[in-house]
């Protein structure tokens, strides 16, 4: 082939078709969703993150938690996500509507976290686990996050925030481990993770039904 212009036009066209199919149409169909209201509670679902949870998400992103943890529940007969209790149902696009930066993840070096806020709501467990994962989970290969905590000398009474650690993980005498505001925000974010937990399908049906009602009138 001798005509460069045709070749250039050709390969730009192939890229363009994939852009239309894999980018543009998903944006128009999946990326254009309007917030849903739970028909029972009247609240927006999924609920948007509070300021504290948003800050926690920034810590999650900053420290790359996504590189070991996914946030998606696959359907039944696809792996064992639901059988392991990682979610009641598969997660769908509407579950992530208010998610901001999607953190679906592609590795499960650690467990999926889509519904960790339902499965493990305990703040103290998360704090201890983040300080050093092996203190709650022997054999875990998750990194410790000591830099999200402060080791301080006990002056007078122990702080109410101090972590209760055991065995090899206790600090030396006279010292305690205090969570920083950042790690508390991170835990608040983890506690908010309940993808697939809300009845978004019910809310979508309610929207369709109310639109039908309006048309009837």
């Amino acid at each position: 082939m001798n005509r460069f212009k045709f070749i250039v036009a050709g390969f730009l066209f192939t890229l363009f078709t994939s852009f239309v199919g894999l980018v543009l149409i998903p944006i128009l169909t999946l990326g254009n969703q309007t917030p849903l209201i739970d028909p029972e509670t009247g609240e927006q679902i999924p609920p948007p993150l509070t300021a504290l949870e948003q800050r926690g998400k920034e810590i999650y992103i900053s420290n790359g938690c996504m590189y070991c943890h996914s946030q998606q529940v696959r359907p039944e007969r696809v792996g064992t996500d639901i059988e392991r209790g990682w979610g009641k149902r598969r997660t769908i696009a509407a579950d992530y509507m208010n998610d901001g930066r999607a953190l679906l993840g592609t590795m499960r070096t650690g467990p999926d976290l889509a519904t960790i806020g339902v499965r493990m709501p305990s703040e103290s467990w998360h704090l201890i686990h983040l300080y050093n994962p092996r203190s709650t989970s022997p054999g875990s290969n998750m990194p410790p996050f000591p830099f999200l905590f402060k080791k301080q000398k006990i002056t007078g009474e122990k702080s109410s925030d101090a972590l209760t650690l055991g065995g090899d993980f206790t600090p030396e005498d006279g010292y305690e481990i205090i969570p920083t505001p950042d790690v508390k925000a991170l835990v608040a974010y983890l506690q908010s993770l309940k993808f697939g937990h809300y009845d978004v399908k019910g809310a979508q049906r309610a929207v369709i039904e109310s639109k039908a009602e309006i048309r009837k009138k």
Partner: protein
Amino acid sequence: MSEIDIEKSRQERLEIDRAATKPVGMFIGTSLVWLLLGSFLAIGASIKLHNPEFLAEANWLTFGRVRPAHLNTVAYGWLSTAGIGIGLWILSRLCRVPITDYTSLTLAAVFWNLGNAVGTWGILRGDGTSIEWLEYPPYAAPLLIISFAFVMLSAISLVRRRPPGHIYVSQWYILAAFFWFPLMYVTSQALFFWNPIQAPAQGAVNWWYAHNTLGLWFTPIALGAIYYLIPKVIGRPIHSYYLSMIGFWSLAFFYAWAGMHHLIGGPYPAWLISASVVASVMMFVPVITVAINQHTTMKGSFSALRWSPTLRFVVFGGVSYTLASLQGSLMAIRSLNYLTHFTHYTIAHAHLGAYSFASMVFFGAIYYMMPRLLEREWPSAWLIKGHFWFCSIGFIIYFVSLTWGGYLQGIELNTKDTPFLEIVKLTIPFLKSRSWAGSLMTLGHLFFAVNFVWMLARKRSASTTATLLGKQGPLTNP
């Protein structure tokens, strides 16, 4: 063929190589720095997965930052930078015109390296985006974009100045890569950062970009290099030129549609995933045409692997391309994907493509190019052999470790009664093996870097064994 014709053609080739020395040399030289940095980041990340307390005190060295820093430095610091240099040189050779925009390419090299430095520093300090393959914080992107604009202009200038006549397949591949990459990069930056799209659509954009960076940026440059270097080294033309055109167009069409196979099982509509699964399987077409072409061209010349350093790397890479792509097509089929998704198996596959294919081909290309750019030989054959053997054997161990370990991991993940911590435990020996393998590969890279620096430091020597620079001997007069 008269002596005059031979001399004229030689002078023309020399002029082209000399014009390329500094601009291309800058990209190749700096790419090696990133190769080393990326390799050390890789070893750090690998050790942390079986030894999580390793260097865990500092926040900038936490696994979740070191791992994306590794990916981005090898993707944009090593592979892309080397790819720019190799692509420009092959274009210059095939268009038969010298590179003339030395100033703008110098700027491009500075900006490209600065962008990578700023980006890597940004990830380590905590500004990483957690968007796979786009982890450089947004403030690094403008540097890369401006740089690449200069690179594109240079490539277009070469193509426009070429004399009329046939366009060789490598020119299509490389020119296409130089258009595809910036279009995808700028589009992704816009959709993620300048005018962010809603979360449910982000995965589609993410994997359209990331998968296409592999298939429409690294792959075409590497294929262009293979199509040029194999025939040049052995002195025989490509066996079926016709097949190579089919290969190009089927790659252009099918690869671009394949990206959604990274999202199988995820919150996406079935038609989106299925389109990509079909395209992924159709990738058999370009991959088999390339494999047939490479094999039939090489047939009868396999002994060349003994005397040609370039060919060792390039053929190793070419075979890896076939294997990686066939494996990839199979992994896109849902039933296999349900087993391998989310496991270390995927990581092994990714490195079969980005390392065993793209990096090894680029190593081969650099071994061919540098003597022609610098008009002197590589100082040490032993360092070259060491580079090849440490990297090839190291990689084979890497691939076997993570494929086997990932497969077992996948089986247990799909066994609901296996506690998660048991799964972690079973992967540890494979992860340790990967750290050893990665160390061997890094050693190979060090051999490469030492040989490179030694070559730069050497003065142009009047060697009596006329090897790479023409039968009459190395040139003493420009």
